[in-house]
């Protein structure tokens, strides 16, 4: 069973590496949004530093959507999904494997690139570290929530926009606690760990609920 899990993770990582695409694309998209904001708001460094964590988080939420529509759709189109559902391992485990691989290629690079992109919005070193940490803890929640939408729209052609409309509202709590944790690190009355712990809890809960819901949606869609 662990062998099947690792096989799916390895295959998806290999595919992502070979085709390229969504991982690098979402990183560039992330950079685009973060780079556009200073142009839109003007070069007020104090203002940018204050809203910096919020900008990075909104950019991360939007960048997570890139490539999410192909998460299950590509497998649905070429019949790989039928292969997965015929495996002795439960579909939930294989969905977990696919989402894990997707997070490793999209969510993790976002969190790791945040210190660099924080420069564009004049974040202090402490702010960069805090935002990066909150993204590391919070992006799994975004990916798992998105996976439910991806599973629901797997058999819909051009379902990307529907996917965004379905999952973005569900990502709001993660965004709220992510930004408030990052801002707590920059000063304020709330200790940094309180919102961060809630963010971690959101990721863990999304991991369980998202996996079960996505597998159920795939079964139902068959």
């Amino acid at each position, binding site marked *: 069973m662990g*062998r*099947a899990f*690792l*096989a*799916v993770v*390895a*295959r998806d990582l*290999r*595919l992502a590496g*070979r*085709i390229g695409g969504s991982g690098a694309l979402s990183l560039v998209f992330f950079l685009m949004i973060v780079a556009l904001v200073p142009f839109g708001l003007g070069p007020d460094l104090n203002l940018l530093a204050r809203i910096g964590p919020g900008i990075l988080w909104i950019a991360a939420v939007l960048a997570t959507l890139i490539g999410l529509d192909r998460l299950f759709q590509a497998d649905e*189109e*070429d*019949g*790989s999904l*039928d*292969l*997965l*559902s*015929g*495996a*002795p*391992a439960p579909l939930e485990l*294989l969905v977990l494997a696919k989402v894990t691989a997707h997070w490793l290629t999209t969510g993790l690079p976002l969190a790791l690139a945040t210190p660099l992109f924080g420069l564009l919005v004049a974040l202090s070193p402490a702010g960069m570290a805090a935002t990066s940490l909150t993204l590391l803890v919070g992006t799994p929640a975004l990916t798992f929530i998105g996976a439910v939408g991806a599973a629901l729209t797997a058999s819909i052609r051009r379902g990307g926009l529907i996917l965004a409309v379905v999952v973005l509202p569900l990502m709001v709590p993660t965004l709220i606690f992510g930004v408030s944790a990052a801002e707590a690190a920059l000063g304020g009355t709330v200790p940094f760990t309180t919102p961060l712990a809630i963010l971690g809890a959101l990721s863990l809960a999304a991991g369980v609920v998202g996996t079960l819901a996505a597998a159920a949606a795939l079964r139902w869609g*068959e």
Partner: protein
Amino acid sequence: MRLIAEDLACRRSGRRLFSGLSFTLKAGEALTVTGRNGAGKSSLLAILAGRLRPEAGRLTAEAVGERTIPECLHVVGHRDGLKGALTAEENLAFARDLLGAADLAPRAALARLGLAHAAGLPVAYLSAGQRRRVALARLLVCRRPLWLLDEPTAALDVASQAALAGLMRAHLAEGGLVIAATHQALELEAARELSVEAFRPTRSDVAADPFAEAV
């Protein structure tokens, strides 16, 4: 393994394709499903594979232990489940790890289908017939008793069709089951034939069922 289908009925987009379809397939037996285009051959195979719910009827498997029917079968159909960016060998190695009950090594399975030279090529570069042969090689990397083949000879050249017939004979000799939907004769002497069209609802059935839509 023994596969028993009782009174299967199938309705797709409001139109009933067949009803009252029953058969029993024992170990070492082959069944060819025939019928004109759109008669419901692929739908029957999808029902057998557990990918489509039958409108009525029951499907049971005996002597398979704890496994469910989808875990006992291989499907080779139009959507081959191969990733174009991965090599033939990588695709088969993935299927082997995923499906369990490993049998032949990927390279050995490809060699059996005459594709040893293509093992390291990405599947996207292969021709339709070669792709089909890679999908057929999946039958050999994991041991599963029931083979569901949808138009297995499509795009295959004469030599590959003969190789496929040889594989099916060997599988049947080992006590496997083969169900193939096909228009062409499969060179299997012992294969029984099931015509889906024989189970098409007749006019009188339609009249007797007030909820049935006009065919």
